[in-house]
């Protein structure tokens, strides 16, 4: 049964290789689309079968490791040798991630069949998407840090390839480069963390490392550094402050890419990594505080930027950064399963939001500015209703999924020994902003007056695009069922499912099962109230009283411009870091060293040889008697030398 795990990972790889090698010769788009989606779909089915099998097993029997082959094996003759295998670990956490990745991935592949229709790189798109799924599965199923890092880098590569998919446009190439470079900075931290882990534990294997972590006491400095460095990697991959700047630019890629990579899966890799290493983080409370702080601040910071953006995808990009902040906030207050729960629900409604925006962009013939939209619900009913469902979910209105996951995070931020009122308040404020900006988006895009010219003729998307929307809407509505907390008479199934994973972390943190406190109901009511207020305010302003918005912009012009221009962070980075490095590379490394010294040496030595040759060739005068003189001279010299010896 577990042997099927290998097929989950290898099928997308097979898809990538087949489409990559032969795709350009296949003229039938449908074939490519079905094949590309099929590999992911079959992976999902296998994962589901394994999941169902696991449900029937006893808790202690659910973890299983499948080894493919030994990757690195060094024999040093001493205690520590590096042994890394390509081995996959199926347990409660990884199967959950696998289901999300393959499930949402499959829906997005199907959506892409319609969305990418007519593109001349159709086969290339599906091969890259399959490669991405392969890399992501390696990341979530790996049983050691090295294989996880392979997946980590692999998804970064696919992100680069897919953001820059339309490579003929310069700005997409720039966005792809930016994503890769910023990611790399994070990856450097991750690598340093890995080195430290190997030095400390002598192994990169999860079971070994997490098993022997118990010998360390809470607050150990080595563990603090390990967890911090790993988190730097997460900051890059999951777009937290200060390494979030690549995600808004990444919107230059096709919308399915934004949905899959920059909403549902790749950016969640950091969250998964923290969850996987929960034992290590439990032993480093300082890092946990840092994680929570970064998460909360990012959540609010990004939400404020999202308020003012006019590009439909940029609003969603900042929304993603903000929601990822919530996930890290959860991790930071040691609510690990809450963070994973939010990861899952967010995958549903954020993918849906992006795919919906894709349908809008498709209908509006590549218009992305919401100021030029409006009243689209008449023309795109399915898109409108599914988008609305996702918006309600992300705002955290019960009984939709987003309510349960977000509320769990806010409750834990408030009540946990590792949380604080400040963190909770930031989360609450962020929730208000979230509701506001998402309904601003809905109102300006789908409702109200039509602000576009009627030559555009918007029309609803084809069924390959709308059916995934409907499925994701359904999941956004009911997906919360697995996490209904005990306070609302649910069994909190997801927390119980993941409990064995986080058991050792929780025991170190001394987190016990809290009884339901009345405070939880108060907080719940507050967050719903705040969300409803945000929705009401957004609809009031953008549907009926636009003058409030314009007056606000005029009166607080400076603040508005600050937010509209994303707090000028990109410009600051450019001035402080990018431009100096580019200049130094240009003037010192290129012109000074490479051209001046290296080329100078090579050309110089050639020049020296040439000069010498110019001088020496004059000996060959062509007059035979000159040569004869030299003969005689030589003979005389030799004879004198012999005589004098």
């Amino acid at each position, binding site marked *: 049964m577990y042997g099927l795990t290998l097929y989950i990972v290898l099928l997308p790889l097979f898809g990538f290789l087949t489409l990559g090698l032969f795709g350009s010769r296949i003229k039938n788009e449908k074939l490519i689309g079905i094949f590309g989606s099929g590999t992911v779909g079959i992976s999902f089915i296998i994962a589901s079968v394994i999941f169902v099998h696991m449900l029937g097993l006893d808790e202690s029997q659910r973890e299983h490791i499948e080894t493919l082959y030994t990757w690195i094996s060094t024999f040093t003759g001493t205690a520590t040798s590096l042994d890394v295998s390509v081995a996959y670990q199926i347990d409660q956490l990884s199967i959950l991630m696998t289901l999300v990745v393959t499930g949402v991935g499959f829906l997005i592949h199907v959506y892409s069949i319609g969305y990418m229709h007519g593109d001349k790189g159709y086969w290339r798109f599906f091969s890259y998407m399959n490669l991405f799924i392969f890399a992501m599965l390696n990341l979530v199923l790996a049983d050691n840090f090295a294989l996880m890092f392979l997946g980590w880098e692999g998804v970064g590569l696919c992100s680069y390839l897919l953001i820059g998919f339309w490579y003929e446009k310069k700005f997409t190439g720039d966005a792809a480069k930016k994503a890769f470079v910023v990611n790399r900075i994070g990856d450097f931290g991750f690598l340093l963390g890995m080195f430290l882990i190997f030095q400390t534990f002598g192994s990169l294997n999860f079971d070994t490392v997490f098993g022997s972590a118990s010998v360390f006491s809470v607050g150990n400095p080595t563990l603090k550094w390990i967890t911090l460095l790993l988190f730097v990697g997460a900051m890059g991959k999951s777009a937290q402050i200060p390494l979030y700047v690549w995600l808004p630019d990444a919107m230059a890629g096709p919308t399915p890419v934004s949905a899959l990579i920059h909403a549902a899966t790749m950016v969640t890799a950091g969250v998964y990594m923290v969850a996987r290493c929960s034992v290590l983080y439990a032993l480093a409370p300082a890092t946990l505080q840092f994680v929570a702080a970064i998460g909360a601040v990012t959540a609010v910071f990004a939400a404020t930027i999202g308020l003012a953006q006019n590009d439909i995808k940029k609003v969603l990009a900042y929304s993603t950064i903000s929601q990822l902040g919530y996930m890290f906030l959860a991790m930071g207050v040691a609510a690990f399963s809450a963070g994973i729960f939010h990861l899952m629900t967010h995958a549903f409604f954020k993918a849906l939001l992006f795919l919906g925006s894709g349908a809008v962009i498709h209908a509006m013939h590549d218009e992305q500015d919401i100021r030029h939209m409006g009243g689209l619900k008449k023309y795109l009913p399915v898109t409108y209703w599914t988008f609305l469902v996702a918006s309600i979910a992300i705002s955290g209105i019960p009984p939709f999924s987003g309510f349960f996951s977000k509320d769990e995070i806010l409750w834990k931020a408030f009540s946990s020994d590792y949380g604080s009122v400040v963190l909770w308040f930031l989360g609450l404020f962020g929730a208000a902003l979230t509701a506001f900006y998402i309904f601003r988006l809905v109102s300006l895009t789908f409702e109200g007056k039509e602000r576009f010219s009627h030559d555009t003729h918007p029309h609803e998307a084809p069924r390959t695009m709308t059916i995934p929307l409907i499925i994701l809407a359904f999941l956004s509505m009911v997906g919360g069922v697995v996490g209904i907390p005990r306070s609302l008479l649910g069994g909190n199934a997801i927390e119980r499912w993941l409990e064995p994973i986080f058991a050792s972390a929780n025991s170190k943190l001394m987190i016990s099962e809290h009884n339901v406190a009345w405070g939880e109901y108060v907080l719940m009511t507050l967050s719903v109230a705040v969300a409803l207020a945000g929705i009401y305010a957004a609809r009031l302003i953008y549907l009926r009283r636009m003058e409030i918005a314009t007056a606000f912009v005029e009166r607080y012009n400076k603040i508005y411009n600050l937010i509209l221009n994303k707090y000028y962070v990109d410009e600051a980075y450019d001035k402080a870091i990018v431009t100096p490095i580019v200049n130094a590379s240009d003037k010192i490394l290129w012109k000074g060293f490479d051209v001046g010294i290296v080329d100078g040496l090579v050309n110089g030595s050639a020049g020296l040889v040439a000069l010498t040759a110019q001088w020496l060739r004059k000996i060959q005068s062509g*007059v035979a008697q000159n040569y004869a*003189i030299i003969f005689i001279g030589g003979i005389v010299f030799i004879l004198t030398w012999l005589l004098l010896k």
Partner: protein
Amino acid sequence: MVPIQSYLALSAILFVIGAAGVLARRNAIIVFMSIELMLNSVNLTLVAFSAHLGNATGQMLVFFVMTVAAAEAAVGLAIVIALFRRKKTVNLDEINILKW
């Protein structure tokens, strides 16, 4: 009897005169004459030693040298004539095409 040193000294002087001629003269015919002079000085040395040592081997070698000198003069002059037909001169300083 004339001592052998006289013959050898004469031969050496003739050789040097011949060598100087080969190196310093411009006219190709004069250079050939100098070469012949060098060869003949060697002949003189050989004959002197042959008479002094009472061994006929020296005189035998003289025959060979004379034969070779004759053949070489014939071929050399043929080359000079071919060269003259081309460049209309026998001035060795002007024959310098095979250079840099």
